């Protein structure tokens, strides 16, 4: 019997009296064949969420089963591309249908006609198991794509094509499995988005993800394979922070998911990344980037899927042995999509109308991060950086609170800092990173053992300042003794001269760890010499009057990244300034 639509309510439709569908199966809904997913099955009703707007749908239109869960196509051509939440290429849709996205468009995710230079790496008789690489393709100038056997397949190679140019659907290798069946292999494979790709084992966290952003690298570092959340009210710079990280972090591949955010922002990412050159390879940043854009006015169910699509693509490249970073902006919109659909299903709400399964969904997502030993023996990582947009900038709301339980780095954005145009507006009192013990060895070996020690000192000064500011707010700074005034001044220097970073300044937008260390050293040297003056009972005003603070505060601009020797002059200047007081 044909299955037909019974009821329609927003993106949710139901089918009556059927047992043809399985849970989370992909279905086509209506004559326009809109893509949908089965989200609940009861004896009487099967409920489907539709990934497109349901305007014009009628009861009695057919619903087709596909027998498969919602999957993405994985293969060469993903990089440089921009997809919607269910991996439809937006460029192709624009070519097909013009500036507006029509309902029910069916475009293949990857270009079927493009010829790729394929090098086969196996020969007849080889035994292959899940994850093994059978061909390599230069996908972009930066990234070599590796075709891998789908995780649960294995067998003996019985046929291999010559190296040469192939389209993504050409069969380039055949395997015979244990049962004697022949399996064809093309350049692509499919994978259900809600299922994590299997790995051999999880490895301990050991490397930082270097971002070139001082407040992150120094105070609250994130590890490769780690998780981080950026919560902040509107206008505090979540998106700017995500953009900076996507541009500068040292991952091999960036997956940028614009989930329920602004259309203009995605256009900006597209334009900027095309123009920006990766400092390490001198190639455009798009060569290592894939964008997933499900803007806030695109259908809500596809917004829910976009996060999973993003992380599945990330895992696929991790399996090839790359370090992948996924930026999800914003996970709150995703949680709201869950809430919206849950409301249409008339489920019993938990906190603030969010469904009771919100924490488990969040943890399932963040747990897909990690530094992994892959099935094929390569090592790769997926780092997840999720923005959170708390309602009313109130961090006690459910999405922020539950996210906090599952991430180990927390960059709390602060409205007051953003109002003062202090970017990144990361509040140093509320933020934390749990990765520092894991990364200690790496910093000691690759930067300097002084790095973490200086970091600790910086943080202590800032903590001290916070306490003193309580007094200053009540009584003014004049009442403080000179040693405490020095702390206030040094902390101000750290805030303005070190933590605050100008994303639009050619040198300051990315600062290598070496320069970060040298800057810290200069600041702490000034602190040390300042204390000498104070203990000699001379007023702190004398140091201020020498203008040395004004000079040091600008060192982030005055010392170019390629001439760090200039830092030596600052020690001289500090010594001279101090000497002039005596």
């Amino acid at each position, binding site marked *: 019997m044909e299955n037909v639509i019974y009821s329609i309510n927003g993106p949710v439709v139901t089918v009556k009296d059927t047992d043809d569908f399985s849970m989370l199966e992909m279905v086509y809904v209506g004559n326009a064949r809109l893509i949908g997913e089965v989200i609940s099955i009861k004896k009487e009703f099967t409920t489907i969420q539709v990934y497109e707007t349901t305007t*014009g749908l009628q009861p009695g239109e057919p619903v087709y089963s596909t027998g498969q869960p919602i999957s993405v196509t994985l293969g060469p051509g993903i990089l440089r591309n921009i997809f919607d939440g269910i991996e439809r290429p937006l460029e192709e849709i624009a070519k097909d249908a013009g500036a507006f996205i029509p309902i029910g468009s069916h475009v293949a995710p990857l270009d079927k006609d493009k010829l790729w230079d394929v090098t086969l790496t196996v020969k007849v008789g080889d035994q292959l198991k899940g994850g093994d690489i059978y061909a390599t393709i230069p996908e972009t100038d930066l990234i070599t794509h590796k075709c891998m056997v789908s995780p649960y397949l294995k067998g003996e190679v019985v046929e291999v094509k010559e190296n040469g140019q192939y389209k993504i659907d050409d069969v380039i290798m055949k395997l015979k499995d244990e049962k004697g069946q022949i399996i064809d292999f093309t350049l692509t494979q499919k994978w259900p988005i809600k299922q994590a790709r299997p790995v051999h084992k999880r490895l301990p966290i050991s490397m930082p993800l270097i971002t070139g952003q001082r407040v992150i690298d120094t105070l609250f570092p994130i590890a490769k394979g780690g998780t981080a959340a950026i919560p902040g009210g509107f206008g505090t710079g979540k998106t700017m922070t995500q953009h900076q990280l996507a541009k500068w972090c040292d991952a091999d591949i960036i997956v940028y998911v614009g989930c329920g955010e602004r259309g203009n922002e995605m*256009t900006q990412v597209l334009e900027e990344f095309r123009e920006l050159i990766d400092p390490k390879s001198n190639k455009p940043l798009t060569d290592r980037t894939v964008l997933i854009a499900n803007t806030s006015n695109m259908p809500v169910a596809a917004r829910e899927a976009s996060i999973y699509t993003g992380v599945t693509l990330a895992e696929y490249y991790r399996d090839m042995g790359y370090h992948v970073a996924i930026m999800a902006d914003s996970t709150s919109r995703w949680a709201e999509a869950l809430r919206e659909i849950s409301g249409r299903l008339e489920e019993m709400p938990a906190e603030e*109308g969010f469904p009771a399964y919100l924490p488990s969904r969040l943890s399932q997502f963040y747990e897909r991060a990690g530094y992994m030993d892959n099935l094929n023996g390569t090592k790769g990582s997926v780092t997840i950086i999720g923005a959170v947009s708390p309602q009313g900038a109130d961090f006690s709301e459910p999405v922020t609170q539950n996210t906090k339980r599952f991430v180990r780095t927390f960059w709390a954005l602060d409205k007051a800092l953003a109002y003062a145009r202090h970017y990144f507006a990361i509040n140093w009192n509320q933020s934390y990173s749990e990765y520092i013990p894991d990364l200690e060895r790496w910093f000691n070996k690759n930067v300097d053992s002084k790095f973490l020690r200086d970091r600790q000192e910086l943080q202590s000064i800032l903590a001290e300042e916070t306490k003193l500011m309580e007094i200053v*707010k009540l009584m*003014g700074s004049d009442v403080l003794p000179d040693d405490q005034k020095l702390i206030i001044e040094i902390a101000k220097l750290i805030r303005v001269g070190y933590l605050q970073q100008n994303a639009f300044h050619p040198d300051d937008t990315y600062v290598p760890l070496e320069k970060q260390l040298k800057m810290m050293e200069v600041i702490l040297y000034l602190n040390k010499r300042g204390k000498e003056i104070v203990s000699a009972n001379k007023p702190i005003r004398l140091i201020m009057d020498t203008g040395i603070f004004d000079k040091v505060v600008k060192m982030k601009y005055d010392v170019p990244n390629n001439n760090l020797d200039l830092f030596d002059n600052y020690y001289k200047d500090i010594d001279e300034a101090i000497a002039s007081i005596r």
Partner: protein
Amino acid sequence: MSLQYIGLNEINGPLVVLDHVQNASYDEMVELKCKDGTTRLGRIVQIEGERVIIQVFEGTNSLSLSNTKTRLLGHPMELPVSKEILGRVFSGAGKPIDGLGEIYAEKSMDINGLPLNPVSRVYPRNYINTGISSIDCLTTLIRGQKLPIFSGSGLPHNQLAVQIVKQAKVADDEGKGFGVVFAAMGVTNDVAEYFRRSFEEAGVMERVVMFLNLSNDPIIERILTPKCALTAAEYLAFEHDMHILVIYTDVTSYCEALREFSSSKGEIPGRKGYPGYLYSDLASLYERAGISKSAKGSVTQIPILTMPNNDITHPVPDLTGYITEGQITLDSELNAMGVYPPVSILPSLSRLMKDGIGEGYTRADHSAVSNQLFAAYAHVQDVKSLTSVIGEDELSTVDRKYMEFGRLFEKHFINQGFDTNRSIEETLDLGWTLLSVLPKGELDRIDNAVLEQFYDHEKAVAQFNLVEEGTIRELQQAVQNG
């Protein structure tokens, strides 16, 4: 020939339920004929088998279960459009109400619109010169942007919107001119009249399309008003290459109408009773701003919303802030001090300004001035709160300078008056003169080279009649010495 259904099954607030309906499609329009022969429009909002739920736009007054005939129209809600709509006045549901007759439609457009493909968008870069210092310098309006005004009761948000329309100039003009689409949602007759009169005085009336759903009009029609207005705007911008500024007021009333509709439908409420899909619904309005690669025109939006109880964390301003590209916040305290426009600088923001200012757009030093003004004014707030505890006399010398700067900034920069139109040069120069009130060392957001070029303490002293610390001391001594 379509079927007519006689009678209804249920009436509940703005919703009616009809049973045994064949071939109804989701979001389809229906026409309800009352006993007295008048017709009302409605829309199908839910279907369960043969039972459909219809939202009636003009309210369900005097409908009864037996006297109503319902006809399905076979298409979703559409707005007839042609270039003639310029200069006309429509109801919230898109019917002409100015007595000039129906529109000869060139085509009919679905008022829900379709999402603009991010790859087909042009990133907005061209700034709109509004002639208002606090906006031009600090929260620059960009063509294709959505920049709401967050206001409160009793604040002059309507004047500000009118002033923007009056003074707005675009730097270059590739499109074929400028137009305004104005939508009133639940505002009083007086306010709508004020806008109409102001547009007339500004000489733009023949370039304005008005959609009016006043506070005494049916509430469900209010849900359609912004959608109709934006459809008209998209038509003019993307098919006639015009630069359209859409002003709609008041978004809070719109959201309340949505809440009323949602609760009568029996939906599970989210925060403060607003439906869980409020974010998606607002986004479907705000995201219709932008510029498309396929057309020369643009849609710029200035939604106006009043914050209930001046609470910026209320769901409506909160969700709006997450979707729009910044906000202009008005402040009742400044208003009470007689400052017009009472723009509260610190919570105001324009996200797109960073790419639309500087060399080639406004002036090279623009971002330096605005960053420093923000930073300095933020510090003024800290000093102010300190002053309220220890008094101004106990402040340090630098902090006293900040207090002086804060007062001058509010008096000269923010307070500019309804009739003053400042060029961007005038605005930026004024910014520099104000910054020059402060000691040079305090201006830590500015590159030294730029600072050397523009910092001019003498000018500030002369312009604002400042009295230097040193002079005061000399005077005091002179008095003591008799």
